[in-house]
């Protein structure tokens, strides 16, 4: 019995790792903390633009912090697609997934990078982070090993890929099932997410089972979970994700008055404005 293998990625990942891995955001070596923040008008729903550092109020474990820098639509994206390629994603479903992905990739700028992680119970690097988006498209093929679903393992790998280069890490997970094969536990991967500044969005096809892990992960990273009825809606969902992510502020601050280690609860608000703010609820600091 043979299992078609994707002979891929190792060199690509080596390249990306060698050319510019930024320092761990939450390690003891790095003092600055980055937080992706989506600010929308509470009444009209549109993205609120033009905010400055002084407009943000940020509490780290209840201690007000000085926001140093705010970026908006300036930092290139590292978009990592983590796609369930099990047997159930074939035929029309695969075509629609490819189509939706193509539209998403078309929406990237030339400074953005994309990567691809595909999975069944096996986790495969389809493409390391690259500006060659055709390479990503080419590797969007089903894995021929029928079997279970390791969405937790794959999400971990995707997050690691997303933070392997400078830029804002965005992971988009698509799965039509729940995890049945991962080695890593939800707790471990959520823990990794709380130490990372990658934002995870997930798209899950509705079923009787709630994708609890994806819900927790997207919540922990300040992303969003979409539960769609039909995969035909995938293109619009992917484009919404990209649009929303692009219009997030990336703010950074140097924590003061708080301990380094442990869980840091974050509260982000905008002074004097009726807006909705979406950001990660906190992070795990290096002890």
């Amino acid at each position, binding site marked *: *019995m*043979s*299992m078609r*293998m994707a*002979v*891929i*990625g*190792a060199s690509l*990942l*080596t390249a990306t*790792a060698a050319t510019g*891995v930024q320092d*761990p955001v*939450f*390690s*003891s*070596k790095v003092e600055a903390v980055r937080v992706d923040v989506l600010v929308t008008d509470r009444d009209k729903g549109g993205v609120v633009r033009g905010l400055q550092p002084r407009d943000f109020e940020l509490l780290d474990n209840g201690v007000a912090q000085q926001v140093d820098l705010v970026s908006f639509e300036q930092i290139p994206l590292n978009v990592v697609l983590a796609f369930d390629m*099990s*047997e*159930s994603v074939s035929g029309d479903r695969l075509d629609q997934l490819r189509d939706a992905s193509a539209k998403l990739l078309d929406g990237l700028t030339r400074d953005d990078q994309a990567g691809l992680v595909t999975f069944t*119970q*096996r*986790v*495969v*690097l389809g493409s390391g982070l690259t500006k060659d988006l055709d390479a990503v498209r080419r590797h969007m093929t089903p894995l021929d*090993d*029928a*079997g*279970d*679903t390791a969405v937790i*393992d794959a999400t*971990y*790998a995707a997050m*690691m*890929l997303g*933070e*392997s280069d400078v830029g804002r890490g965005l992971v988009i997970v698509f799965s039509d*099932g*729940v*995890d*049945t*094969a991962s*080695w*890593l536990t939800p707790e*471990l*991967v959520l*823990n*990794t997410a709380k*130490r990372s500044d990658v934002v995870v969005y997930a798209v899950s096809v509705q*079923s*009787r*089972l709630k994708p609890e892990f994806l819900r927790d992960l997207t919540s922990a990273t300040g992303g969003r979970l979409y539960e769609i009825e039909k995969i035909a809606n995938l293109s619009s969902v992917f484009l919404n994700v990209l649009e929303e992510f692009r219009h997030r502020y990336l703010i950074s601050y140097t924590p003061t008055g708080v301990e380094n280690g442990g869980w840091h609860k974050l509260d982000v608000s905008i002074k004097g404005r009726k807006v909705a703010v979406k950001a990660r609820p906190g992070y795990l600091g*290096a002890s």
Partner: protein
Amino acid sequence: MALKALAVAAALLLVAAPAGAAPIQQRAAPPTEPRMERLERWLDAVFQHNPGSYDDRIVDVGKWSDAELEMLFLDASTVIRIIRNPGLASPNVGFPMLVPGDRTGQTSRPVRYTVTEISRLKQLACTVGGLVDAAPCEPLKTAMAGDTVLSSLSAQAASVRRDTNANFIVHRGALVHSDVVLFGLAAPRSLDFAPGRQSVRMSIADGHQTALTQPDLHWEIARRLMDLAAAPGTMRAAPGGDAVVRSWYIATCAWMQRDGHHDNIHIDHARELFPDDPDLAMLNGAHHEAYASPPIQTAIRSAVLPTGIRLSVESERAETRDAERLLRRATELKPDFAEAQIRLGHVLAVTGREAEAAQHLERGLGVTNDTLLQYYGALFLGAVEEKLGHNGASKASYERAAALYPRAQSPLLGLSELARRAGHRDEALRYLEQMYSIRMERMEDEPWWTYTYTQGRNADALLDAVQKPFRLTTGER
């Protein structure tokens, strides 16, 4: 069969709501052919089938309907009863034959044979039991003379008869029905939710229900036959003391688990008969581990079942509790049982008792050289040590697992996560890079994926060991 195919699907036996259900026997349809002729064909298969081999006789038995199998069992057990009590063969002796009560609490009820059928049953018992010259059979001799069927069965039985208590029929009969299932020869059953059906089978793949089917009766018939096994030198059924029955249950339970044909009824009955057997305790514990695993729990939670079907799979917590209880029992019965120790360690780890888990994992690792068990032990210990905050020990354990199965991805994921948690992102990426470079060719390259199947990995050898003493020599065929 390749493991890849096995690992992607499983089938669970679910129990139909038994309350007030009529026993299966009451539903017996009229036979499509004379029942005594079918009994004779079955006896022919019992004496002539070579266990573990494919032949026309098991193909024939595989075609029989549930009703025919039910009737066959009654008739076969009557023959066995007469052999064990030859006085019943006397022409003028009538005897009650009871349909035994079933597990739903139904009481026994009498079977009514015709005079012709009773006569034939006696003739068959005298013939295959080697009792033709016994006093109760003497009067039947005239009627039996010139009967080519009896003559043939007599010769066949004589060549395989090793006892006088009909165990040779019990054991060989059970092996016939086992082979019908093992060779996939059982006639397909349409789904039947009528009162009295005791179970349906749910097939799953990747955590989803894919089919509901009606299980065939061959395992049930085989179990009922094995239940008739008598202690050596006695005429009384005592299956719990029979070495063949024990080996048969271990082998068939292993086969069921290796191939994902999970069956509570089978393994629970095995444990009832052999409560102090460490192998069966381990297999039963592993069976509940499988029931607690994500693929089965997910499928159960999302299953759409008809009214009246009760799941025989409990919650993850309850299944894990059962697994722990049974695996503990296995380790009590056999403290150096490496697989039971390692599986118990895993169960304790997933329920948050890492310190105790580590003890059992280390105990298991210390008494085995089996590469697969070493891998599981090292992998689980890697996770346990991380939880205990022993990062160095965790890393060493994961590295040991990775060395044992260099193509497995789980140890590398564990090492990567461990490094990332410690803030060593470059190291974490290097482990992933190593994982991506793996050329995986077989499911066996990553034993974690088949953890809930591998307890049955020796099924073929175990089945062979059970079958071998019953294989026919050239002279017996």
